[in-house]
């Protein structure tokens, strides 16, 4: 249920919970650090009373292993959303609100079709599958932004974030899908090295097509990405912060800061 006391007149974010979602607490913290009110709410409550969504301007589907990633990562939760919430979620997006899917959340957004479909076919033509390495990997990667459509990013800032997944390889039905995404400016992040060049493993940690790490929808208000911005909102979360001076910016903050800035400027 909504905690009434935790609703502000300003920006309110909903962090989705479901069986196996496990990054909800730190995602809530990252949002609060960036200056909004955030609540973690179980999907069962939203299915019971979908009006809950009206209270919030930001929806975040955090990382984890929803339903154990059984069948395929994010698949069962995506199926649940398709069959119980798809109209409400589409209305949420159409009303100008914003959605962020991190890791498992990205997989869910792709597999619901929200990020996985390409007009005009209306079919899911994008998916996320097993890493080339065949195993789960936790490592830090550099991300090069691409385009200016996505409201969550600083278009000129290369950022450093951790990934932690076994199924993060973005693939397409065919090459036209990729070209279409490029033309629409829907590619948000690519895996690069510290100088901004793409390359093989481990620079591209999962073998993702065209080194894609994140995608947005055609409005730029729905972002899905495999790396975890909520895991780098404090200096001491950097993997070798003991080598750096205190001024290092926590790169993950930009995603949440921009989200809140956007809501303040456009939705309040």
């Amino acid at each position, binding site marked *: 249920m909504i905690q009434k006391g935790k609703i502000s007149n300003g920006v309110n974010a909903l962090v989705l919970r479901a069986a196996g979602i496990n990054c909800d607490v730190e995602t809530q913290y990252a949002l609060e650090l960036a200056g909004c009110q955030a609540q973690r709410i179980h999907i069962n409550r939203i299915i019971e009373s979908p009006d809950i969504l009206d209270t919030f301007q930001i929806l975040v589907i955090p990382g984890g292993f929803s339903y*154990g990633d059984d069948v395929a990562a994010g698949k069962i939760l995506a199926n649940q959303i398709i069959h119980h919430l798809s109209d409400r979620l589409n209305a949420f997006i159409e009303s100008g609100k914003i959605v962020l899917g991190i890791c498992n959340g990205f997989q869910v957004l792709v597999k619901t079709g929200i990020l996985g479909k390409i007009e005009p076919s209306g079919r899911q033509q994008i998916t996320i599958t097993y890493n080339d390495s065949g195993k789960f990997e936790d490592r*830090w990667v550099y991300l090069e932004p691409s385009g200016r459509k996505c409201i969550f990013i600083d278009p000129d800032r290369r950022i450093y974030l951790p990934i932690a997944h076994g199924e993060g390889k973005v693939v397409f039905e065919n090459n036209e899908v990729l070209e279409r995404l490029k033309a629409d400016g829907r590619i948000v992040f690519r895996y690069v090295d510290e100088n901004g060049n793409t390359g093989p493993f481990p620079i591209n940690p999962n073998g993702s*097509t065209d080194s894609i790490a994140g995608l947005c929808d055609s409005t730029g208000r729905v972002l899905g990405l495999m790396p975890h911005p909520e895991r780098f909102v404090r200096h*001491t979360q950097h993997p070798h912060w003991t*080598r750096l001076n205190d001024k290092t910016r926590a790169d993950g903050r930009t995603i949440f800061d921009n989200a809140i800035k956007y809501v303040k400027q456009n939705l309040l």
Partner: protein
Amino acid sequence: MKQWRFEVFDRPGTCACATTGAGSDDVHGRGVHQDIKELGIDTIQEVQSARVFLIDPAPSDNSVLNIGRCGVEGDFDADFAKRLAGELLADPVCENFHIGRSSAPAGLAKATVIEIHLKSGVTDPVAESVMTAIDDMGKKCQAVRTARKYILFGEISEKQLKKIIRRLSNDCIEVVVIGTDAEPPNPHLAPYKLKLKTIDITKLNESQLEQLSKKMDLFLNTIEVKTIQNYYKTLGREPTDVELETLAQTWSEHCVHKTLKSSIDLDFNGQKIHFDNLIKDTVFKATKQLDKPWCISVFKDNAGVIEFDETDAVCFKVETHNHPSALDPYGGAATGIGGVLRDPMGTGLGAKPIANTDIFCFAEPDKSFDEIPRGVLHPKRIMKGVVAGVRDYGNRMGIPTVNGAIFFDDRYLGNPLVFCGNIGIMPKDKCFGKAQSGDLVMVIGGRTGRDGIHGATFSSGALTGEHETAFSHAVQIGNAITEKKMLDTLLQARQQKLYNAITDCGAGGLSSAVGEMGASLGAEVDLEKVPLKYAGLSYTEIWISEAQERMVIAVKPENLQRISKIFSDENVEATVIGRFTNDKKLTLKYQGMQVGQINMDFLHNGLPKYSRKACWHSKNLTEPVLEKKENYNDELLKILSSYNVASKEWVIRQYDHEVQGGSVVKPLGGIANDGPNDAAVIQPKSNSDKGIAIGCGLNPFYGDIDPYWMALAGIDEAIRNIICVGARPDRIALLDNFCWADCKKEETLGSLVRSAQACFDGAVGFGAPFISGKDSLNNNFLCDDGTEISIPATLLISAIGLVDDVKKCVTMDAKSAGNLLFMVGLTKNELGGSHYYKIQNQLGANVPKTDIKTAAAAAEKIHRAIDAGLIISCHDCSEGGLAVALAEMAFAGGFGIHADLKGLPKTSDCAAPATQLFSESCSRYIVEVKPENYNDFAKLMLGVPFGQIGKITEQKRFIVKDAAGKKVIDIEIDKLKDAWQKPLKW
């Protein structure tokens, strides 16, 4: 009714490997192909994998359904089957599906088809999720089963196929179907009909009693069965089967640790020493004597609890899961982590798990198959399986795995050791719980099945080649998401104070959980109320099943409605199965009939007290005479490449070590995020800079010389590790895990006793109390030919320490050229059990002997210097000695080091360069200090041995000069790093 069969294959061309641009798309097929190649079979050209789903739709008439799911829509048609396959089971972009049974593709090389199905009753998490998803699609199904299908292309012999099957499947839990025509096994669903079983024991003689214990797999010895016999003689009746099983489980070594609690007479080099109760007189005694006010609950609950800050406490428990991991590495390790998580969750009123630690002992992985005895899995397979099990369970639970170690020695061939640990946090006012009479007994989480029956008793015996088949039922299968859901809801119920006590269903299942919670009250349980995975379980099986992901709570009747809603709101099953009474009896009923009743007092206090004999005679060992070398480059490279020292990055990266966002010092660090940090630091509360450091120490090689010094070295190392990153020396608590071989042998028990004595001395000397522990004995394997493989004496010491300000933590990587390097601590002529000797197949005699007083003083001073910001990096000097520690600092930081042994603080018998380079003397730290802080640092170190041993350089070489100025090591750091990374880069 029709059963639908679906096969899902990778769609060629959609996900070609981006990095190589070649090879099969099918990642799993490729992995299996690799595994087959590792078996030495090179005739297989390709492996294709598929996922198989067998789905029974619910009948239109839903009256037949009795297990929870009632159908609204019946049997589904071909259109729905197609939707199901296309929308749910197969990925629309990168997979193809086939409805029905596909035949092997023609035209290619000879194809062999194998399908691996789970045995009836084995937990199938995917099947459960598919059922939920079909619900979401508006249809119902009665049963879902999943399988893996592999098509092997290429000629193979019958024998090779057998070998492949043995590699890909596990007899304990799986059935393999070969060929396309064979039928998969049918699940058995025959309902159970109550038939009360009593066992006649009162008239049996001693040998008949022994036979009975053996036949029923009770693992009770003669004195124990006789004690039980006498109890029933006085009652004037025979026991029921469930009563005997309850007693066997409660009295098992695994549950009551009778060896460690027994009275022991030790003969130590002719000197007689008596212990009334070994563990109480050593490990517990130290804790009692230290009497630290910050110890909240020690050795009483499922985990030891210490104060964290004004409002919260942390608890820590490390368990072993050795026997199950030997039979099923993946499932054994997964349930190991699943089980230890329920320890903090079941401590006090329940803690939230915040960090995992995992330590494994395996045989060296590069064995040929001919060296593997029957009934034993290949060590490489065990290692891969164990790592995957910990990975899949820990990652799914969302708990960072931040600390660990892997130790290789061939004596772990038959008995690999798997230590799983967990740390939890909870408010200080939730550290204690107690069931009240009248409270309801509620079981929550997973359903009960046949899994894990006799786990507790089986874990208490030795393993043999027969165990693979005889004890397959002792293997348990986990489902992390069931546990995660349970955790999410329990924390809500705890906050609302809706239950009075909680404990986990671990070894011994409900029998152990309810038996313990009601020990001082009494309890009555209606066994038919326990929710089951499938029909057919007898009342005894229900009671002793060790099915995973279950916990028991005590709930006041007036809170039942509120707490039930919390669980049902998030699809967690919770069922009242009985109540706590005040008759001091454990009463078991099935469908109203009493099937067992035991006095709680007899159950918990009836176990006869043991007295044992132990002996330890110091070994008569000598130091080897090794030739002096011009330089020691090759030796250093060889040690860096030895399995115990080599990088464990392949393992660490498979664990999520950053979830929850609190990992401040991660397992890997340095300029390229791949250096070996000494210990982990986590920051459990986002609004506080306080942290927890976690480290461990274990070195069985020292135990081969002297178990006493091994134990002290373990304590010293665990403490040293967390001091290195910035922990406070005055707030360190320890855990012990004793894994020993057959302790019925006096010599083996003697080595355990010596280690326990060292635990007392070490804990008192360092002022670091033990707060929890666990033992696993009988880790020996009987081969068919009668030879016995016994593990070396293995003591794992885990240390947990407080960090006042995580922003002051330091790591081990060299930070900046020009900075000075110091050795703090004394280097002695102590190469006994060292890796320098190991690579030359020597053991030696001079085992490192911890000087506790100096060690404690050094820890204190290092801490003060870190706190004052005088130390830039700090590295523990352990396996491989000074040379390895310096090399690691250099390549982790991406700098060179010029070391000069002239300044090394050492004893007079330590003149040889090899000794100085590779001695593994305890209590030594290498620290990096800025030149401008030299004076302040030196002032602080007065009173402990320390000396400057070199400086950090831009030139990327590691150079060591001996006291005479001669170069004894000179290697590029990239070469060192490569040697260190190569062995386990799988």
